[in-house]
């Protein structure tokens, strides 16, 4: 089927941000199948609301839709409930053996990924947009529907938690 002019314009504006949409959805859902479903659903929603797009950079606008779609994604509601960092890191949930395996792999990669995934979702999304998408505060504020001040304080707290989480891992390993 031929694309209508509106669809052609939508695809031209929004499809270049497919990687960003998928990356955010993947970090929010922590699951590849859900991430792809969220991306597809988000693009359909975004197209329905495309008349409300005011032009300019499509990325923060699209990511706002991706974020809302992911946060209301029905089948994974559980995965998105807040995981307390303290319980996960210092509680019984983390097997020492796991940590040793990771050490054996020499995997800073795994530690960092784990620490990111353990962040509460409202901190995780800010880190993904700032450090991976390299978005300015203003765009993050638009995508997350937050005041800029809140973006800054969440980013700061997220960085502190990541540093604490990484150093806690180091200590566990060296025990």
């Amino acid at each position, binding site marked *: 089927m031929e694309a209508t002019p509106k669809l052609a*314009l939508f*695809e031209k504006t929004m499809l270049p941000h497919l990687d960003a949409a*998928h990356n955010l959805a993947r970090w929010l859902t922590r699951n*590849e199948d859900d991430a792809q479903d969220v991306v597809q659903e988000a693009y359909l929603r975004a197209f329905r609301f495309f008349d409300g797009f005011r*032009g300019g950079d499509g990325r923060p606008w699209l990511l706002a839709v991706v974020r809302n779609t992911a946060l209301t994604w029905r089948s994974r509601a559980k995965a998105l409930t807040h995981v307390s960092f303290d319980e996960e890191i210092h509680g019984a949930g983390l097997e020492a053996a796991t940590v040793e395996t990771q050490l054996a792999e020499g995997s800073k990669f795994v530690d960092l*990924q784990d620490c990111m995934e353990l962040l509460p979702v409202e901190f995780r999304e800010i*880190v993904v947009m700032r*450090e991976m998408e390299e978005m*300015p505060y203003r765009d993050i504020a638009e995508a997350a529907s937050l005041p800029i001040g809140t973006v800054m304080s969440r980013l700061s707290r997220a*960085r502190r938690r990541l540093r604490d989480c990484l150093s806690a891992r180091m200590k566990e390993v060296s025990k």
Partner: protein
Amino acid sequence: MTCAPAKGLLEAYLDDELDAAQRAQVAEHLASCSACAGMHAQLLELRSAIRSHAPYYRAPAGLQDRVRTALRHAGREATGAWRWIAIAASILLAVSLAWNFTLWRPHAARPDLVAENIFASHVRSLIGTHLLDVPSSDQHTVKPWFNGKLDFSPDVKDFSAQGFPLIGGRIDYVDDRPVAVLVYQRRQHIINLFTWPSAAPGGATELSRNGYHMVHWNAAGMAWWAASDLGAGELGQFAGLYRQ
């Protein structure tokens, strides 16, 4: 700058969110304070760890096709629902135009197709919900909004001072091409100003249909059509302002 304010600005500095003066002050402080420089180094280290070790999940092959297919499928469903309404509207419009043709014929020269398009688009914009794609009274918001949506950049002017405030713009289809429409208000009356590139020579034409008035002119390689239910005098005044 002392440590306290520098610490408060450290992350904004890292994220390149400071203005030039603040950036210089923080940089100067970092050069002379090893405690703050250490915190800055830690933040940089965390950033580089995230960027090099946390996975960036690119869209897998096939996701783009899946999204495009879903979009087309959704579009087709919507088309089905709207098709009958569109057909009914077209029949009404055709009947109305045919009736109007017979009425106008004695009074006016045979109207050309573009004028019909403009007239229909103007009426459609008033009865539908698609008057504005970009609601803004700021010409510096409206003009860039068209960037990337059209292959030309329309000249957007505001005449609030003269009683014709700009209220926004939209994209419409006239004469088989997308055109820019700038929307102005005069009291309770809407003026749609259509424009697109055209090689036709200048000269103004005024037309009237069913209480609607249109003014058409060409200037600087662009065709302009203003349509409104304003009196011919006021619409002429608006066109005069634009052509200055």
